[in-house]
């Protein structure tokens, strides 16, 4: 009997994707940059670099530091500002072979709303991701995703501007990510991106200077994967909207950890800097994995990490 290829299609709000693999914001340009090295038709969607209301020069250099199994970055949201972006950049994106998701960053609720509104009008923009968790801007940029009330307010404001799928990107730099997730869901988010980078720092012991021009930065890559898997697991238990899991995914095995923990889709960022063929490889391997297990669709494994008996011997509690 010939069975159909297992389906990798997923839905985030209204957005239907052929593959459950997004390319992380800030890590994949607008897709074009990677087109010589990767087959963009095998990509779920590209999340574009975050854009702000006004143009931003970005952070002083250096902006990148390699760390064990990780990458620290402090780009500082360098971008031409939403007006130029909508007028001159977005039109170039019309023919991309995969959906594009716009990413919005800001410093006030008004900023977010304004940028969302402009972006939502653009035909090439299939959905909007609200980056309320960028750790690389010295001001209140980070605090939105660190405060339940601010999260609720900024998501409500963005929601009011568009019917397109709205993904809210959460920060791991909080005491209780589940409570922030609940606020975002209640305020109208269609999906949650979990997680943005983890705050970090590195010091050059020869010059005694921080290695990043911005002093602090955001840690990504395999180093943070266990942190991200747990965040997805906790958020999945707190909300019922889909989750885009991310943080250190390099292989189908890594991606599967996120699906099992509760992610509907995953996002690949830093791994593209190791090898641009990784996203395509992950898609092929996910398909093979599902086929091997006789599963019809990737959705069949979402959230199935089984918290039952792990070892053979189990005891109830250990309050001693």
């Amino acid at each position, binding site marked *: 009997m010939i069975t159909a290829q297992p389906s990798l299609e997923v839905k985030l709000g209204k957005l239907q994707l052929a593959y459950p693999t997004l390319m992380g914001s800030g890590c994949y340009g607008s897709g074009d940059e990677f087109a*010589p090295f990767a087959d963009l038709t095998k990509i779920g969607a590209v999340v574009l670099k975050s854009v702000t209301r006004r143009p931003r020069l970005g952070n002083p250099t250096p*902006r990148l530091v390699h760390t064990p199994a990780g990458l620290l*970055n402090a780009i500082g949201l360098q971008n031409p500002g939403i007006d130029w972006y909508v007028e001159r950049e977005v039109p170039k994106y019309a023919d991309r072979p995969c959906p594009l998701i716009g990413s919005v960053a800001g410093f006030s609720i008004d900023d977010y709303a304004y940028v969302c509104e402009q972006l939502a009008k653009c035909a090439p923009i299939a959905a909007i991701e609200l980056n309320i968790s960028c750790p690389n801007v010295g001001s209140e940029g980070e605090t939105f995703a660190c405060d339940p009330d601010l999260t609720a307010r900024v998501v409500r404001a963005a929601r009011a501007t568009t019917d397109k799928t709205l993904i809210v990107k959460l920060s791991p730099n909080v005491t209780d990510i589940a409570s922030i997730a609940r606020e975002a869901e209640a305020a109208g988010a269609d999906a949650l991106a979990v997680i943005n980078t983890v705050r970090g720092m590195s010091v050059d012991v020869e010059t005694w200077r921080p290695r990043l021009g911005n002093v602090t930065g955001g840690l990504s890559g395999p180093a943070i994967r266990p942190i991200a898997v747990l965040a997805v697991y906790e958020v999945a238990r707190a909300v019922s909207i889909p989750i885009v899991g991310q943080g250190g995914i390099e292989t189908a095995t890594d991606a599967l950890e996120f699906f099992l923990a509760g992610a509907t889709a995953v996002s690949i960022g830093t791994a593209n*800097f190791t090898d641009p*063929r990784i996203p395509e490889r992950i898609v092929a391997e996910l398909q093979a994995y599902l086929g091997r297990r006789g599963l019809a669709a990737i959705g069949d494994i979402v959230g199935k990490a089984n918290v039952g008996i792990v070892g053979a011997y189990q005891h109830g509690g250990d309050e001693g």
Partner: protein
Amino acid sequence: MPTIDCDSRVHETRVTDRSELAPGVILLGLNAPELARATRAGQYVMAIPPTGEAAATALGIYEAQGERASLLFFLTGKRTRELGELRPGDMLALTGPLGNGFDLSSKPRHAVIVAGGVGIASVLLAAQRLVADGTRVELLYGARNEALLVDAQRFAEAGCELALATDDGSAGHHGLITALLERRSEMPDLILACGPSPMLRAVGRIAADRGVRAQLSLEETFACGVGGCWGCVVPLARTSAQAPGFPLESQGGSDVVYARICKEGPVFFSDELKW
């Protein structure tokens, strides 16, 4: 630099030869016919880590002829050490050629190339090309010590005039290679330079003092290597022709703009850098 429109892609190459030119300096020959054909002087590759661990490494394309391309690199850290473990027969995947190389279109009569340390890896193709075009080429080559003046003979054979310098005086001028540029009475038509930032800054300053511009090949930590992450930037004057596509007024109230070394560079004109 004028953007080079080249056939950049992922190449599966095979290591053909490997030699240790000095302790910790590796020359890795590759069977890479398509890469060799597409490469222009001053371009680089991103070497994909064979173990899949850590990020890709930016490396200049040292040689490119016929079926063969080669990489010349120092064992500085995890990634280059891993590449240094490769042996003839092993596979190495590369993306490239990447970036805009040197602008050699002016057909100069006389060129000076300043190379510091591993900077030598990015200038052989330019030297060969210039000599072939009939340009008189002088190579000013500096390193920490004589042993680290790797492959200097190769440049002599290619038809360059050599002037050397070492930090410890073990060969050539005892001191900085830029001293040899500074003490020249006349400036050449073309100055190319690749090496550590302080050396490049000095070359830029000397060129400015003498009313000329140099082409400097810059280095910075790369992530994507293809212009996608804005991690590798250098500040340029607002007025630079090499500034990225954004309007100058969009880059904030500042008098500089950040250009990507990987995409707008790695070669920049010295008088446009604000670093």
